[in-house]
């Protein structure tokens, strides 16, 4: 019950060993273009015109990604002094990341000779930091150091029958070993919240689950629309799912059967270990950035794909800093996109494989990738900007 990882000063363990650049300006990307082993957070949202709650959410994600166990050290690119919002001040971001004990450096065009000077300093710093990080060696650690996050997407009926149950088995195994697991997507537990609330560790956690759903459902109703014109998404309906309730009841299988310790905000770090529900939107890159900000050292996308004709290349997102695994239980999806898929459990449907055996195979795959084998998506450089899960209107 162990994997090979990089121990960090705060006691967490990384499955990867990156230098992370946190930009307040797009030029920060230039550092990663020059230096190997660098990850750069790429988001289009820098807080402009956002409410204090949303700016705090952005700060939570940036700090959280900096503190992620897969990050060895961090460069923060300073905003222009005097014009930033208080929540996103460079010193605040740098100090809160450094509180975890890792090295944090700041590049600041106002002090470092302008934008060109700041890039030059950033490249020099990043080369040194990558070199220092490369001296670290993986060591064998217990599974209590796992922090997994999962979403299911392009769901079809194979998701609830064979894909999510394999992930659920893995979640139970990791939680049972003292590790941490996240599932989320509040819209996609509507119709299944009563099942989850019964599994809450205490009445407060049960109420938090029911409250999150009530809030989300009220927002959905306020649109005046039939939710089926929004979610299930067209690919879900094409894959055989007929209602949001059906989608939700299949979706919760990915969370296994363990006790739910509580509900976290998007990007919020849990106070303890175990299984947590994250109150957030479903967007693939958004949700994984939130899980990674909360401490995930590995994230998984459980793919249905029955409604995805011709999709033989799946996206990756290096800036999330957590290895991103694609799993599917749909035989047609697997055939179509085989070189993208890290784990396949359609055998539960076609060959009568026990879902627990499939879960055990998934467990071995996850141990292997956590210990250093690349996930399929990690072989891609392509990245899309992270769409942060912000809730409030812009002004």
């Amino acid at each position, binding site marked *: 019950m162990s994997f090979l990882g990089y121990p960090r000063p705060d006691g967490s363990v990384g499955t990867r060993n990156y230098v992370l650049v946190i930009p307040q300006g797009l030029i920060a990307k230039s550092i990663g273009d020059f230096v190997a082993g660098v990850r750069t957070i790429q988001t289009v949202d820098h807080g402009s015109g956002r409410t204090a709650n949303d700016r705090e959410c952005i700060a939570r994600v940036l700090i959280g990604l900096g503190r992620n166990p897969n990050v060895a050290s961090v460069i923060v690119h300073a905003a222009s002094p005097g014009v930033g919002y208080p929540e996103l001040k460079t010193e605040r971001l740098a100090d809160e990341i450094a509180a975890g004990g890792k090295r944090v450096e700041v590049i600041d065009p106002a002090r470092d000779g302008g934008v060109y000077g700041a890039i030059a300093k950033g490249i020099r710093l990043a080369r040194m930091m990558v070199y220092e990080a490369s001296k670290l060696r993986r060591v064998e650690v217990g599974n209590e150091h796992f922090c997994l996050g999962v979403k299911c997407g392009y769901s079809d009926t194979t998701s609830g*029958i064979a894909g999510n149950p394999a992930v659920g088995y893995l979640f139970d195994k990791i939680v049972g070993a003292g590790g941490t697991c996240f599932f989320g997507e509040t819209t996609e537990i509507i119709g299944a919240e009563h099942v989850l609330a019964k599994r809450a560790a205490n009445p407060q956690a049960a109420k938090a689950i029911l409250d999150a759903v009530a809030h989300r459902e009220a927002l959905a*109703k306020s649109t*005046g629309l039939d*939710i089926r014109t929004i979610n299930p998404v067209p690919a879900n309906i094409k*894959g*055989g799912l*007929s209602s949001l309730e059906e989608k939700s009841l299949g979706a919760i299988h990915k969370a296994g059967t363990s006790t739910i310790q509580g509900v976290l905000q998007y990007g919020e770090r849990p106070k303890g270990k175990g299984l947590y529900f994250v109150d957030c939107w479903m967007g693939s890159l958004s949700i994984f950035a939130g899980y990674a900000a909360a401490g995930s050292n590995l994230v998984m996308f459980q793919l249905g794909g029955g409604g995805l004709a011709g999709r033989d290349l799946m996206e990756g997102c290096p800036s999330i800093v957590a290895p991103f695994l694609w799993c599917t239980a749909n035989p047609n999806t697997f055939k179509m996109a085989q070189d993208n898929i890290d784990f396949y459990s359609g055998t539960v449907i076609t060959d009568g494989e026990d879902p627990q055996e499939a879960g055990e195979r998934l467990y071995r795959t996850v141990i292997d990738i956590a210990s250093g084998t690349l996930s399929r998506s990690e072989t891609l450089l392509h990245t899309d900007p992270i769409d942060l899960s912000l809730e409030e209107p812009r002004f």
Partner: protein
Amino acid sequence: MAVKRALVMHPKDNVATTVEEIQPGDQVKVSGGGEVRSVAAVEAIPFGFKIALEEIPRGATIRKYGETIGKAGRPINRGALVHIHNLDGTRARGDLEGREKQ
């Protein structure tokens, strides 16, 4: 006549999920959730879609995983495809809000 397969998730369910492409007239062997049953498909049902295991009157609850996944929007025959044309979701229906209040 071909024999095809479908999976039922819970003994209380009145639909099963097809795991093969079903043609009209196929006998569908339904397993899981206890007993093995056989239902004759009355129409084509694609892989991963749902087949009705019994007559479902209009307005009746449709159950999968032992839970409610919606109501029948029209009467559904045993062996028929169950999907958005005859199954109505009941949650987060903003379009019904006004009507409920009247």
